[in-house]
């Protein structure tokens, strides 16, 4: 009997111990699941932090790149400006000299013709006249004279372009100080549209959704340059299409959005878009400075310019300009 009682006690003891073990195991399993969930959550957080760090790093690299290119551009602009000044001046003087030389050459021509008709010209003069006539014919003096005029005109055009590039570089690195004033950005958009209308009118419809804006302390001329760049680029990105210009204001910023339904920009090009001298336009038709200058101008205003694009769908540029405290 005693043995049975002991056995019963023992089996009860064991049953209780087993129950405790089972409960402990369940508890351990719950703990494990909780830990797994926590781990997943923290892994997710690490991943989010990593993504945000990567984005920040990319932005930093971009702004560092812009800063170093800016410094380089400032040096180049300064160095080029002086020689371009005297070359332009020299070419203008050369053009004036050429007018004189051309008149004189015409007189010489008439003189040689008159001398050639004279019967009593001394043989030395006769030989010289023949040599002159020979040179005029073989070297095609008429062509040389007219081509020199063209060459000088083209050189002047080229110099004008170089000067424009230098000018753009200077505004990119903020060497130029245009006056700061309070302005209505909508007025700027309207003015710019008139200026670039010739570039747009055959290719695109313009849709304006301009909301009333508070006055903004800015350099209106420079902002107009940004709008002009974006509008002309948009027009160049399409055969026939539509450009939507929107403006609005929230408590802190004026927002201008210029969207087109043109060919869009590939992700590769998107990354280089604001880099000076980067262009996808054919050689000779774009300097690759428009957007980098625009970037510099928006930065100067303490604002932000962001681009979103889908190849084949179109591109949207969003400009945010702070109402208060933007660095100018």
């Amino acid at each position, binding site marked *: 009997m005693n043995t049975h009682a002991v056995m019963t*006690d*023992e089996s009860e*003891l*064991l049953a*209780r*111990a087993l129950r*405790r073990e089972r*409960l*402990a*195991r369940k*508890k*351990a399993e719950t*703990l*494990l699941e909780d*830990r797994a969930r926590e781990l997943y959550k923290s892994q997710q957080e690490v991943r989010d932090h990593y993504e945000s760090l990567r984005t920040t790093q990319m932005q930093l690299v971009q702004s560092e790149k812009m800063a170093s290119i800016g410094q380089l551009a400032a040096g180049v602009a300064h160095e080029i400006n002086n020689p371009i000044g005297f070359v332009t001046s020299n070419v203008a003087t050369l053009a004036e000299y050429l007018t004189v030389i051309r008149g004189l050459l015409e007189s010489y021509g008439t003189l040689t013709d008159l001398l050639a008709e004279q019967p009593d010209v001394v043989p030395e003069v006769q030989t010289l006249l023949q040599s002159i006539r020979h040179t005029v014919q073989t070297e095609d003096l008429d062509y040389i004279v007219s081509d020199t005029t063209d060459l000088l005109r083209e050189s002047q055009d080229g110099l004008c372009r170089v000067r424009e590039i230098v000018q753009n570089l200077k505004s990119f690195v903020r060497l130029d100080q245009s006056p700061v004033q309070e302005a209505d950005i909508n007025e700027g958009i309207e003015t710019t549209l008139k200026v670039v209308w010739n570039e747009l009118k055959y290719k695109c419809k313009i849709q304006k959704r301009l909301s009333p804006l508070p006055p903004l302390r800015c350099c209106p001329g420079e902002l107009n340059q940004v709008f002009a760049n974006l509008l002309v680029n948009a027009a160049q990105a399409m055969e026939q299409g539509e450009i939507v210009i929107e403006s609005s204001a929230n408590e802190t910023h004026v927002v201008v959005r210029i969207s087109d339904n043109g060919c869009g920009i590939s992700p590769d090009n998107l990354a280089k878009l604001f880099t000076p001298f980067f262009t996808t336009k054919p050689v000779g038709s774009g300097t690759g400075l428009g957007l980098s200058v625009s970037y510099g101008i928006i930065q100067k205003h303490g604002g932000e310019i962001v681009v979103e694009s889908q190849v084949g769908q179109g591109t949207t540029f969003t400009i945010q300009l702070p109402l208060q405290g933007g660095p100018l």
Partner: protein
Amino acid sequence: MKGIVFTLLNELVEEKFGLATWDNMLHESDLDGVYTAADTYPDAELLQLVTHLSSSSGIGTPALVRAFGNYLLPGFAAHYPVFFPPGITARQLLLSVDGIIHEEVKKLYPEAVLPRFDYEEPSPQELVMIYRSTRQLCPLVEGLIDGTAEYFGETIQQRHTRCVHRGDDACRFELTFGVTP
């Protein structure tokens, strides 16, 4: 207190006193006794259990706690072999408690409340461990030092020269290695 202490106490009691004693201790203490190594339990539960064991076995609480400390050491070695790499000595293990073992415990269980050990090394044969803990479980430390010596087959003479239970601000254990007690 970490669950590992409770599960090892459970093993000790079952091994030395039998399952019935453990079951009775839980019953007397009104505890469910569901312990897992990874969880954390109130310090008071451990105190209740040890008090009941002391009264049922007739062994004083400090002696019981010291014996438990001795038993804990090989238990820790079995559960956490990473802290007992080949070639490690008793002295090196004791020196790693604060800077390595507790640091790792914190990584796994950030909520764990751990004692603090400061060290003095007067000579290669001597080591001073200064123990600070709100739990004031210095007999457990004594047992752990005993257990360490046994585990490594070394002899450690320990002198508990200062004690919080005697009004000192910390417990000071002066250890001498390689001396037959």
